[in-house]
């Protein structure tokens, strides 16, 4: 009798818990396009509350979902090209968090209009994407990566706090129940989860902006150049959006950004925001040249094999 035959199930578990996992997990269900991956909001009550305009809710969820999807894609392109292993894991994890937020938000929008998250991500045209142009910027170096992430995560964290019902001044976070000024409990719940993630993203970006700005003359020059390059794209975050169910207090955003810039010894640029084109910008489906290349890469497999399953 071999030793394997003598072992009890308990021994197997103690020796190799992966065996137990394999036993449960024999059908190879994975999260990927074509695997029949179900709605991430499965089982969540997704009815639209009375008094809320479903069209506006869809457009707002698409804006926030598209920001996260396109930003995540840009971060994914950095993977295997970062200066340190620690930055690889950080950037990949931030990209994964944003992809998760994108899935929930696209599923929220899609549930109302009768489409899946995959249909929205892979089969919409460029002009149907509502992300800000800041999300589609191709970072030319690590300084641009962390400066852009500081701008984006500071804004998004403040917005999600507002959506989750966190008061901007002296209010309290309600734990256990999600109360929100948005009127949509699903969006409030998605935002409340996102707050915990975005807080780590912002701290990561802010720490690096300070290290670069307050580092060597070369790192300082690169950080300042990144700030100058990205500054015009930042203004679009604060364009009025008629569909928005919450807004970010510009003064609170500036206070955080200025704290980081002053610790980093970087100068706040004075450049005006990048102008809309004919009154239209990212939220209106008007994007920079980069967007077409992003969608070509993001959507090509799904469009080549729209009915693929594996």
């Amino acid at each position, binding site marked *: 009798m071999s030793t394997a035959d003598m072992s009890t199930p308990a021994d197997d578990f103690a020796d190799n*818990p992966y065996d137990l996992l394999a036993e449960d997990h024999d059908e190879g269900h994975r999260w990927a396009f074509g695997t029949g991956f179900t709605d991430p909001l499965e*089982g969540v009550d997704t009815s639209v509350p009375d008094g809320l305009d479903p069209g506006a809710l869809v457009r707002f969820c698409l804006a926030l979902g598209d920001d996260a999807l396109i930003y995540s894609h840009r971060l994914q392109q950095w993977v295997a090209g970062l200066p340190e292993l620690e930055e690889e894991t950080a950037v990949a994890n931030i990209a*994964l968090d944003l992809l*998760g937020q994108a899935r929930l938000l696209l599923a929220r929008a899609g549930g109302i209009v009768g489409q899946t998250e995959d249909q929205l991500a892979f089969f919409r045209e460029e002009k149907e994407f509502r992300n800000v142009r800041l999300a589609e910027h191709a970072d030319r170096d690590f300084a641009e990566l962390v400066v852009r992430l500081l701008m984006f995560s500071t804004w998004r964290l403040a917005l999600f706090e507002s959506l989750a019902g966190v008061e901007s001044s002296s209010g309290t976070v309600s734990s256990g129940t999600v109360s929100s000024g948005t009127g949509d409990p699903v969006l409030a719940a998605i935002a409340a989860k996102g707050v915990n993630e975005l807080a780590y993203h912002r701290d990561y970006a802010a720490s690096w902006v300070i290290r670069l700005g307050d580092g060597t003359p070369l790192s300082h020059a690169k950080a300042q150049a990144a700030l100058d390059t990205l500054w015009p794209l930042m203004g679009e975050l604060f364009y009025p959006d008629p569909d928005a169910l919450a807004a970010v207090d510009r003064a609170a955003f500036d206070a955080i950004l200025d704290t980081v810039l002053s610790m980093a010894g970087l100068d706040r640029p004075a450049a005006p925001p990048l102008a809309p084109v004919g009154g239209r910008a990212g939220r209106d489906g008007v994007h920079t040249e980069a967007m077409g290349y992003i969608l070509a890469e993001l959507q090509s497999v799904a469009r080549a094999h729209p009915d693929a399953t594996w």
Partner: protein
Amino acid sequence: MVAPARTPAYDVAAGTPDPEIPTLTIEDLGILRSADYSPGRGVVVTITPTYSGCPAMREIAVDVQARLNRAGFERVTVETQLAPAWTTDWITAEGHRKLAAVGIAPPSAAPRRTGPVPLTLGRSPSPRCPQCGSPDTRLTAQFSATACKSLHRCNACGEPFEGVKAL
């Protein structure tokens, strides 16, 4: 949080291993919220994602379903619960013990905030070394092989280790 009701189905679902750290169960991690029998629907299991992008959720749902089916529960529905958001405070004492046993520092108490999240700039305290027990450790990276863990190094024994981030 209110402790989940212990039902026969709950006890079966509770033994489902976490795909990432399979010595821990989804009960140890606080991912399993409830498993109740509902007339007409069979067993309804509620799980909550740790992070929005956690790719393990789908696998956990499939695993829970398979375990319950094998235990004789034929109709099983696995549902997602987003609110209240998962917190590392829901990791049980047994979960803390198992984490430490595999060399991962358990999380400290999650921050209780009133108002906006303050900028902390990576100055969060570093946990006790799970190898030698020394409190003299330092944070080397806020993100590790998964979003839920950070990387640390012990100044006493020199070993690098992972810790579960308080969330």
